[in-house]
């Protein structure tokens, strides 16, 4: 308090009496010509910078928890894929194929909406890395490639129940790919944004003051 008053009176020239540091006065005008002065020294500024890290760590905790812990939506997506591929191979008339495709897309959209409603936080777009887009593209390539390859092989080898084999292999490849790809995509998000230093909590910092 004394340091604050001194800082107000002398413009920071005398500094903080407790630490002997010069207090750097900051003048900021906000809103309707509301003039305030806050003395901020280097130590306080450094603590404020540390304080910023803590809530951002919580955001990354939540993003990682969602990416690693939510396996139900992955299984549901794989099940939808299996149903679509198995049904698509039944040699349906064109309207039946279009109906099945529409149902599949509708189910995926509904799943996305449900998942979005359960999400508590969404990471800002500037925080994603190239890995996120690469894993998304690779997911499409792996799924599409598996579908095309198994279709070619089942027709070439004239296997019975080819559509079921195609659906099972494709859904299995999707399941095997999604987990590691997700982990790989999010593994660099936190360190890229916040560095590798271990965080401190708000409470720990406040007890330190």
């Amino acid at each position, binding site marked *: 308090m004394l340091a604050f008053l001194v800082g107000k009176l002398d413009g920071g020239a005398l500094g903080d009496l407790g630490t002997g540091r010069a207090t750097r006065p900051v003048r900021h005008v906000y809103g309707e010509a509301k003039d305030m002065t806050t003395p901020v020294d280097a130590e306080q500024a450094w603590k404020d910078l540390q304080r910023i890290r803590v809530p*951002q760590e919580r955001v990354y905790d939540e993003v990682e928890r969602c990416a690693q812990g939510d396996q139900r939506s992955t299984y549901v997506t794989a099940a939808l894929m299996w149903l679509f591929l198995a049904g698509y191979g039944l040699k349906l008339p064109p309207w039946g194929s279009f109906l099945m495709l529409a149902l599949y897309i509708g189910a995926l959209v509904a799943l996305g909406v449900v998942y979005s409603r359960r999400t508590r936080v969404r990471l800002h777009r500037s925080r994603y890395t190239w890995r996120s887009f690469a894993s998304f593209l690779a997911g499409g390539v792996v799924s599409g490639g598996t579908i095309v390859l198994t279709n070619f092989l089942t027709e070439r080898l004239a296997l019975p129940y080819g559509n079921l084999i195609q659906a099972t292999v494709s859904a299995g490849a999707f399941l095997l790919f999604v987990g590691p790809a997700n982990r790989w995509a999010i593994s660099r998000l936190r360190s890229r944004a916040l560095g590798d230093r271990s965080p401190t909590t708000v409470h720990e910092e406040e007890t330190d003051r």
Partner: protein
Amino acid sequence: MSTPSGFDELIHPSTRLSVVALLAATEWADFPFIRDSLSLSDSALSKQLHTLEEAGYLEIQKEGGGRKRRTKVRLTARGRTAFEGHVAALRAIVEGAGPAPVRPAPHEHAEAGR
């Protein structure tokens, strides 16, 4: 001694700084997530959010109704700019050259990190 440009009195208080820092990492966050992450009460968080909303730093969006009512909080472009300016000002204070020591001593770093 020069005044760091970008220093923002509105988001300087610790609770508001934490709220804005959390929102800066997100597209949006819902109210309970912010409350739980920062260990704040509903009323304390609500008060800070409305102060920031009045300044145009964030948007509060209510969705649904009844028990499924959900409150999403989003930092505006103005709020994001203010936060980035404030962080830059804090860094300038820490790193700035001058007659005063610009960085806390190593033992103070260790204490602050505990």
